[in-house]
C-alpha cells in the first residue's frame, strides 16, 4: 500500500515516504543521481538551476539540526526557494491540526513538503491529502522511516565498498525506537546485501524484528564478527527511565563500539553513525574519529542524496 502511495502509475517516484517496497532500480537511480551531484559542491558556484521557481517547505514538527540543514542546503543548491517552518513552536501549539497546517501551506503554492514528525505515518497522512502536483518527502516520522538517511547510508557504503552483494552489515543499538535502522534494513535487503545483522539487548529490539529479514544478535562478540560495515545507532538517555536499560555505563561496556570490539570485524571495516553521536555511550571517541570512521562523509553525502531525491521528485 505504501508503494501505491509513493509511486506514480508509471512506476516513477511521486513521494518518498519509506524505503520499504521501493524497487531496487529506484534506489539505484537515486544513488546514481546523487553521484552526479557530488561535483556541484566542488564548484565555485555551488548551484544548479534545476528547481528554479519551485517552493519547498521544510515542515519540522520535531526539532532537527542536521537533517533540516542538509535539506535546506540541498534545495538551495538546486535553486529552489526554501521556507523553514519550525512548527513545534507555532501553529500546532495553537491547536491547528496537521492537515489544516498542510492545507494552509498548500494554499501558498507549495511544490514540495519535507516533513519531520514524531508520529509514525504522519507523512503518509499528508501525502494522502495533498494536491496531485505536490510532493512529500519524509524527513523522519516517529519510529517508522527516515528514507533519505537510509539512502545516504547506502550511498556511503557504495562509495566505500563498491557493491552490496558480498557484504555483511551490522546495525547496532536501539533498533526499537530507530526509524533510521528500519530504513537502512529495507534498503540493504532490497539492494541485495546478503547478511544484515541487528545487535542489541532484547529490550531494544522490536518483538518480530527477524521478520524484516535480519539476523538477530544480542551480543557484540558474535554480532560484529567479520562484518564489512558497522552502523551504530544513537542511544537516547531517556531509555534509562523506561526500564529498557540499567545504565549508560553498562550499555557502553557491552554494546559501545570500542577499538577492541572493532577488531572483531574485518580489517577494512567502515564505521557509520547517523548522528548525533553520544561519545562514550554508544561509541568510543577513538573509533568515532579513527581511520575506519566514515561518519563525516555521511553528512557530506547527505546533501547530494537529498538533492537527488528532490530533483527526481520534481521530475528531473
Amino acid at each position, binding site marked *: 500500500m505504501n508503494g501505491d*502511495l509513493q509511486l506514480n502509475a508509471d512506476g516513477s517516484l511521486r513521494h518518498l515516504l519509506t524505503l520499504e517496497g521501493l524497487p531496487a532500480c529506484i534506489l539505484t537511480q537515486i544513488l546514481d543521481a546523487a553521484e552526479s551531484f557530488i561535483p556541484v559542491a566542488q564548484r565555485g558556484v555551488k548551484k544548479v538551476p534545476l528547481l528554479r521557481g519551485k517552493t519547498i517547505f521544510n515542515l519540522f514538527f520535531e526539532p532537527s539540526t542536521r537533517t533540516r540543514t542538509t535539506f535546506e542546503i540541498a534545495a538551495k543548491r538546486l535553486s529552489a526557494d526554501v521556507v523553514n517552518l519550525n512548527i513545534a513552536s507555532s501553529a500546532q501549539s495553537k491547536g491547528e491540526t*496537521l492537515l489544516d497546517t498542510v492545507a494552509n501551506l498548500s494554499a501558498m503554492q507549495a511544490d514540495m513538503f519535507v516533513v519531520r514528525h514524531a508520529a509514525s505515518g504522519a507523512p503518509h*497522512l499528508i501525502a494522502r491529502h495533498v494536491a496531485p502536483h505536490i510532493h512529500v518527502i519524509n524527513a523522519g516520522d516517529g519510529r*517508522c522511516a527516515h528514507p533519505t538517511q537510509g539512502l545516504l547510508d547506502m550511498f556511503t557504503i557504495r562509495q566505500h565498498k563498491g557493491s552490496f552483494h558480498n557484504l555483511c552489515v551490522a546495525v547496532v543499538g536501539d533498533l526499537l525506537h530507530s526509524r533510521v535502522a528500519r530504513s537502512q534494513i529495507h534498503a540493504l535487503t532490497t539492494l541485495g546485501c546478503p547478511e544484515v545483522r541487528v545487535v542489541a539487548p532484547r529490550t531494544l529490539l522490536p518483538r*518480530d524484528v527477524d521478520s524484516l529479514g535480519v539476523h538477530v544478535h544480542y551480543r557484540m562478540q558474535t554480532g560484529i564478527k567479520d562484518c564489512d560495515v558497522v552502523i551504530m545507532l544513537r542511544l537516547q538517555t531517556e531509555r534509562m527511565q523506561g526500564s529498557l536499560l540499567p545504565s549508560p555505563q553498562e550499555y557502553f561496556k557491552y554494546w559501545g563500539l570500542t577499538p577492541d570490539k572493532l577488531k572483531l570485524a574485518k580489517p577494512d571495516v567502515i564505521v557509520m553513525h547517523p548522528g548525533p553521536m553520544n561519545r562514550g555511550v554508544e561509541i568510543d571517541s577513538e573509533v568515532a574519529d579513527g581511520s575506519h570512521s566514515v561518519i563525516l562523509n555521511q553528512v557530506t553525502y547527505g546533501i547530494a542524496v537529498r538533492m537527488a531525491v528532490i530533483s527526481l521528485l520534481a521530475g528531473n
Partner: protein
Amino acid sequence: MKILIRNGRVIDPESGLDAVCDICIAAGRIQAVGDVPADFHPNQEIDASGLVVCPGLVDLSVRLREPGFEYMATLESEMRAAAAGGVTSLACPPDTDPPLDEPGLVEMLKFRTRNSPGPRVYPVGALTWKLKGERLTEMAELNEAGCVAFSQADAPLVDTRVLLRALEYAVTFDLPVWLRPQDPHLARDAVAHDGIVAARLGLPAIPVPAETVALQTILLLARETGARVHLARISSRAGLDMIRRAKHDGLRITCDVAVHHVHLSEMDLVDFNPNCHLVPPLRSIRDREAIRQALREGLVDAICSDHTPVNDDAKERPFQEAEPGATGVELLLPLTLKWAREMQVPLLQAIDLITRRPARILGVQAGVLAVGQPADVCIFDPERPWTVSRQTLLSLGKNSPYLGMELQGQVIYTLVDGHVDFKRNH
C-alpha cells in the same frame, strides 16, 4: 396495531426454528409463529418472501456518545443507525463525559432513549467513580436506575485491590461485571499489536501478555469471589485458550469479541489507516483465525459491534494520535453473515451470536421469537450486496475500516415492540 409478516425464513435460535412461515404481531407482542390464527386481521402486512426474519439484534457495546461527545455523534443519530443495523437492544458503555457513575445520569439517559424511536437501551454503569479505578460507584442505586452491568469500559483499573472489592461488592447484589482484560502497564502509550507490522511501521506496541496477564488476574479474582464476570473484546488466541480452560473448570464467565476482530488483523494497518486504530488492537492473523474458530466452537458467547463513532477531525491524524475505534453497529449483521459464509456455519448459529446469547449476557428478555414475547424483530435480505460508504452509513461516525468495500446482507425492517422503527426500500 396488528402486523403479519408473511413468507419469511423465520430463524429463532431459542426454539431452533428455521423454516419459511408467518409471524403474527399484536399489541407489541408476538401472537403466533407459524400458522396464522383464523381470527387474526392485520392492519399491516409485510411480505418477507426471500428475506430472513429473526429476533432483533442484541449488541453488547454501542457508544451513543451522549452525554459529552455530541460533536462526534448524537443519541438520535446512533439509535437510528442501530435500528438500520437491525439492532433492537443495545448496551452502552459508561465512557461518556461525565461517565455513567451517577443514578441521575442513567435515569436521564433512560428517559431520553425511551422517548425516542429505536432500540431498547441498557446502560452499563461505571464500576468506579469517574472510571478512575479508585472508588466504587453506587452500584445498587445505579442498578435501580437501570444499569444492567458494570464496567470500566476502556479505562484502566490499575489497583488490583479495587478490582477485588468491586467484584465482591457486585456479588452482594449479584450484579454482573464486564471487564476488558488489559494490563495498563503493558499497554501504556501503545497503539498496535506487538507483531510484524508494528516492527515494520515503528508503532508503539501492545504485546499479547497485556491481555493474558490481566485476564489471569480477573479469572483468579472471579473464582475467588464467585462474581458474574463477562470478558469483553477478547483479541488473542492465548486469551481464548485461557477462557476455554476456565470455562472447562466450571467458572461462571462469558466473553465476547468485536466484529472487526473477526475479519481484520494487524495486516490492515500497513498503510496507517487510522480507521484500523482499534481497542484492543487488531492482532495477528493467527489470533484472528483463533477468534473465528472459537466462535464456531461456541466458546465465544457473543459478537458485538463495539460501535465507536469518531468525528473526522479526531480520526484524520497520524495513526497513533487518531482517536481509536470504529463505527460498526450497521455492520454487525453483514460482517457476522460474512463470517458464517466463510466458515460454513449455519445461519441459525450465526444469528444466535448476535441475538439470544448476548441477550442472556445482558440478562434481558430479548433475542427470541416466542409467543407472548415483545415483538423485537429484524428482517433482512441475506444476499443483497451494498457498499459501505459515508453516504450509506447512517451513523454520524464515518470511521469504518470497510469504507468502499462491498458487503452482503442488508436489513430491510426493524421492529421494536411491534412497531416498525426502520424500513429500507427494497
